[in-house]
């Protein structure tokens, strides 16, 4: 019984030795690799491309600050719109408490109804367009395009 164990362990030992020898041989082969010498035009080619890149205007960096502000604003407006649409469908909720959390309801604007209200919307659209135009000019200017 003990002999069997001994023989098996010797076999395992021999197997481990054989594996170690083979792996050493694999390592020896992979470690000895002939070195390539760069071709004569390699450095010139790299530097040519680098010079071309350096001559290009710097790319416009993405305006993360403005983008985040815009996304938050758009998200807020969208959320408010959804909330206003769903509010009549939520009778179980305390309407008074909800009103305290939201912007004045359209009923509160009744005195402004009519032509004055329409002019207000048009004026707001124009102001937003103007702001967009000014912003894009400013971004293009900082990128060296204007």
């Amino acid at each position, binding site marked *: 019984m003990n002999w069997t164990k001994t023989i098996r362990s010797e076999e395992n030992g021999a197997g481990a030795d054989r594996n170690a020898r083979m792996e050493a041989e694999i390592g020896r*082969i*992979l470690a000895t690799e002939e070195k*390539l010498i760069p071709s004569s035009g390699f450095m010139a080619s790299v530097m040519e491309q680098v010079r071309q890149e350096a001559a290009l205007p710097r790319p416009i960096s993405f305006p993360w600050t403005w983008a985040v502000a815009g996304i938050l604003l758009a998200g807020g407006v969208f959320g408010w719109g959804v909330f206003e649409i769903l509010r009549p469908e939520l009778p179980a909720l305390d309407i008074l408490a909800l009103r305290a959390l939201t912007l004045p309801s359209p009923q509160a604007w009744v005195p402004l109804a009519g032509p004055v209200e329409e002019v207000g919307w048009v004026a707001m659209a124009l102001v937003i367009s103007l702001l967009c135009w000014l912003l894009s000019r400013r971004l293009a200017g900082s990128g060296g395009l204007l």
Partner: protein
Amino acid sequence: MNATTSAEEDLAAVEQVLAGDVEAFEGIVRRWQSPLINMAWRYCRDRSRAEEMAQEAFIRAWRGLSRWRRESSFSTWLFALAANVYRSELKRFPAQTLPLESAHEPSGAASQLSELEERRRQEALRRAVLALPLRYREPVILYYFHEMDLAAAASAMSLPQGTMKARLSRARALLRRRFPQLEEESAVVELTALNPGKEAAN
């Protein structure tokens, strides 16, 4: 050139480039062109492609020079960047490789190994590395490229050293199974080293 001088030269060149001196980048290319091409060669075993890949790595290094934090050496950063470039290049256009199962071991008894056959056998083994699954292939490439420096290879792959070691071991086991004849030949190499005169007489 010793390592300290090279590191100082790299740092100075990087500072100059960041200050707007494009030509200072030439020093970096001169110092690192050979290592980067040889590294790319190990990834694809195609000379012209290796140069193209190395060129792409230099261009990426040029673009991202300001992102090099001085915490690690310039060479560590450059090799990690190059490894990323080579990996993504080979994902886009894989190197021409045979499946590992069809990587034939050159036949012939160990005693009849001519120099030519030895070379062919070695090249077959090196090409078989390219047929390994990517998770095992890259550790092998980088470990032997970095002259068996486990820390450098692990840092180029952003892997813990333990993981790197485990993948290397698995890769060697896969290669060992593919090339069983290596056992006899490694024995011959050992015998030749022990008894050079006797082997020559045979």
